[in-house]
């Protein structure tokens, strides 16, 4: 049986902590950032497991492009809810004015 290399143990621990934080931190922007870091650490794990092809795909697709997708969606969602919020505020304002007038 092979002896565990300390590098692998450290990598796995950091990887698991990073993944757990990405899943449980309340702020979603932070979560996405942690997920990107997590993806890069996973790519490192693939290299350790002698899978350089998979490591390349993971670093480019699993971490980079998925991160870009998540970030763009997050900003689109924030834009949409900001718009909704200002519209609702305007609506409240106008009903209040009508109430005051009537």
């Amino acid at each position, binding site marked *: 049986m*092979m002896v565990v290399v300390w590098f692998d143990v450290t990598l796995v621990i950091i990887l698991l902590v990073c993944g757990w934080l990405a*899943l449980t931190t309340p702020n979603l922007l932070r979560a996405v950032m942690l997920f990107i870091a997590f993806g890069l650490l*996973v790519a490192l*794990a693939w290299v350790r497991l002698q*899978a350089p092809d998979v490591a390349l795909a993971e670093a480019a*697709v699993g971490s980079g*492009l998925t991160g870009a997708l998540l970030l763009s969606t997050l900003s689109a969602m924030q834009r*949409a*809810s900001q718009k909704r919020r200002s519209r609702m505020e305007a609506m409240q304002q106008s009903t209040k004015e009508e109430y005051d007038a009537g």
Partner: protein
Amino acid sequence: MIGTSTLYTLAGVLLFGMGLYALIAYPHLLRKILAMNVMGTGVFMVLISIAYQGPTQRADPIPHALVITGIVVAVCATGLALTLATRIQALTGSARLETDEEA
């Protein structure tokens, strides 16, 4: 003492469990998609660690090919799911799946 392969298999199993918990427990859709990705990574890690045959021997290429296919399909599923999530937010005003308890 456990081997490198088993270490990464266990890490993969743990990642899968973590992702499953976050997928079920947390209401925000973006988080659920993130959790799905972490679950997928866990499965990939189990596959790759099974393919690993020690530092001297060449690793099994068949699980590697499966995982590369899986990674690309996962990013497509993520893209589609994110589009669905944005659409849900546009139609209902919220990107969360609220439970009865919170509503």
